[in-house]
């Protein structure tokens, strides 16, 4: 194997896979990047067996071949090189020579045959999705996923088709839930059956969307979600499990509905959150005629309270919420006005943007 490549391109390609490279070292070869020089292109692959990335770049291939090298060290070396171009050469032994100007490295490699196979995208049908839309679906839900490994079916975002080709994404950690629906330009057929996409994959997909103008393609193959761009293929093993029956959690027929300025509530919550109890993060919401009061107290710090005028004339209503959850929700909504819907003191509190019927968040209160 021998090829020459632009340093800048290689830095980019290696940078993209760094987050995927396995760091815990359960399988040492996963710390390596698989380099494949084919007659027409160069690919760099990495996987932690859950998420895989294949990055394709232009290179002058002299001799095709494949090899794996430590992903971290290769990335750091290439970043430090000064010449605009470099040559990689696998010699007769197991060493890879890197030459760039006067700099020479000879790195130990592991045979590509040792590297686990990555799911390919050859037989998959893809649907085109706007990258911004996909990013939004992730942004508005990812925060509500569970980080508790014992609830693996909640460690990701549930995606499914609802009527008229709309895609619905739902995430919950059992204490709060976030839901959003959007219409892609063309329907995503494989979402007729819901899938659960794990957190780590979503974070990678989110990054990919951010650096993409226009659209990406998504597809499903053998328990893997694929996200593709001409120069990049991301594969994510789906969570094999049943998502919870989230529909029954969505509050029906709220009895109280108040409208608030989102920014106002966000800043007030941030302030009272400074003195919430470190462990519970609980703060009180007290609704009385014409106002909502936020109150927090911490035996070691003191108390905080803040009043926000609201259009309300019903009975006094009091509930207690985790301030972090509320801040997460307020951060995931971008509308100016926010609707809060309430039923009873120990029933879920619903938040939704006033101008978007297709997004909502639910937070279960705390019992004091």
């Amino acid at each position, binding site marked *: 194997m021998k090829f020459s490549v632009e340093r800048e391109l290689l830095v980019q390609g290696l940078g993209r896979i760094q987050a995927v490279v396995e760091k815990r070292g359960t399988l040492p070869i996963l710390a390596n990047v698989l380099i494949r020089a084919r007659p027409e292109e160069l690919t760099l692959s990495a996987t932690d067996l859950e998420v895989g990335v294949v990055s394709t770049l232009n290179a002058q291939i002299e001799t095709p071949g494949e090899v794996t090298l430590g992903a971290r060290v290769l990335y750091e070396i290439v970043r430090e090189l000064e010449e605009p171009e470099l040559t990689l050469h696998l010699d007769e032994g197991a060493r890879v020579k890197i030459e760039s100007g006067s700099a020479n490295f000879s790195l130990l490699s592991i045979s590509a045959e040792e590297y686990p196979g990555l799911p390919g995208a050859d037989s998959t049908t893809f649907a085109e999705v706007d990258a911004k839309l996909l990013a939004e679906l992730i942004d508005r839900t990812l925060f509500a996923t569970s980080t508790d490994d*014992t609830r693996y079916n909640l460690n990701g975002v549930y995606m499914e088709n609802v009527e008229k080709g709309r895609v619905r994404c739902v995430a919950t950690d059992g*204490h709060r*839930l976030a839901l959003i629906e959007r219409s892609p330009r063309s329907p995503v057929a494989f979402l007729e059956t819901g899938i659960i996409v794990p957190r780590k994959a979503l974070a990678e997909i989110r990054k990919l969307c951010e650096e993409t103008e226009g659209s990406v393609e998504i597809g499903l193959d053998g328990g893997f979600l694929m996200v593709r761009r001409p120069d990049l293929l991301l594969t994510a093993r789906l969570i094999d499990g049943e998502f919870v029956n989230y529909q029954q959690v969505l509050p029906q027929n709220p009895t109280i509905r108040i409208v608030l300025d989102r920014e106002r509530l966000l800043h007030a919550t941030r302030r009272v959150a400074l003195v919430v109890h470190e462990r*519970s993060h*609980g703060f009180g919401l007290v609704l009385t005629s014409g106002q909502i009061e936020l109150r927090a107290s911490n035996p070691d710090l003191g108390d905080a309270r803040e009043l926000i005028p609201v259009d309300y004339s019903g009975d006094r209503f009091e509930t207690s919420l985790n301030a972090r959850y509320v801040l997460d929700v307020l951060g995931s909504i971008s509308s100016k006005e926010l609707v809060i819907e309430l039923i009873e003191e120990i029933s*879920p509190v619903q938040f939704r943007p006033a101008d978007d019927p297709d997004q909502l968040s639910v937070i279960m*209160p*705390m019992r004091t």
Partner: protein
Amino acid sequence: MDAFYASVEQRDDPALRGRPVIVGGTSMRGVVTAASYEARRFGVRSAMPSVEARALCPDAVFLPGDMGRYRRESRRVFEVFGRFSPSVEGISLDEAFLDLAGTDRLLGSPGRVAEQLRAEMRRETGLAVSVGIAPVKLVAKIASGEAKPDGVCIVAAAALRAFLDPLSVGRIWGVGPVAYARLEARGIRTIGELCRCAPAELTRALGPFGLRVAALARGADLREVEPYRDARSLSEEGTFSADTRDPGRIEAALLVHAEAVARRLRRAEIRARTITLKLRLGARAPGPGRVRYPLRTRSVTLRRATDDGGRIATSARDLFVRAEIREPIRLVGVAVSQLESADPVQLSLLADPRESDRVRRLNRALDQVRDRFGEAAVGRASGRADRADSVPLSVQIKRGEDERP
């Protein structure tokens, strides 16, 4: 205090005065909780099997004990302690550290304080108390032991070495029979010998613990008197009337202990995250040390702190099943630690909030029934309730726990 439970009994029943009195389990497998000085003369010690105590002292009066009464008495004792220092660290129902720093202008010299405390204690509770006074906690504790029965022992800073040097290394906190045997093997028997020993030698004998022991031996005990130390763990345990392998009996016992621990958590308005199963095997293990029955412990930490006996029992049972212990078991216990104040509880979106509310209301109702009619009035059905009745309980009082005066 001196032989606290036994002293309370002797005070309240003149017929017992001057006679050997033993408070503790009277069954075949009971142990001595407290022995009066008259009984100690025969070699009876606390934690000794009652059978052994009876053999040593056949004339002793055995009493089952009354924890409620001892606790009430303990509150009176601590009330007296509280008059002599604003900083009182209770170690048990009848023992405490008092920080006398800065009290001399108000109360006089430590010697005067000791005499006055003893006089007030005797006048108001009718009980004898021994006082040890020293610059640091460890030495004060040792000095109070030297002062017993019914005396005072003052160790001034200048006299520290002369006091400690001739004492056995076993008097140092943390030096149990095993450590003692290791030190003895190197010819170290007294605290003085320990002080003269090279640190490397101690590290070889006891590991890093050796250096801590050496520091204590030099009288370097930097621990402050901690008046408000919170409980770190609560536990309940009981010895079976005969060693058992029967999972039914063991699980029934775990349920009883779990319920009792949970009740104490609720009373103190705290919750626990870590649940520990404690098992003592019936077969004695060879080797030095008083602990002749091998101990097995298993722990699990919950995602959320709990004060529910059912939850604690389930964890304890799971631990028991996973421990896969085949030997006969002598004792089982349930301990909880990683205690948290009962903060607001995040309710689950996915579970019916009425369900968790139901558990809470059930526990509250159980507590109310027990408050009124006693601990045995109501219990959880284990499915093997017939076997649960044979579970004898012993309550472990841990430092700073809920029922501290």
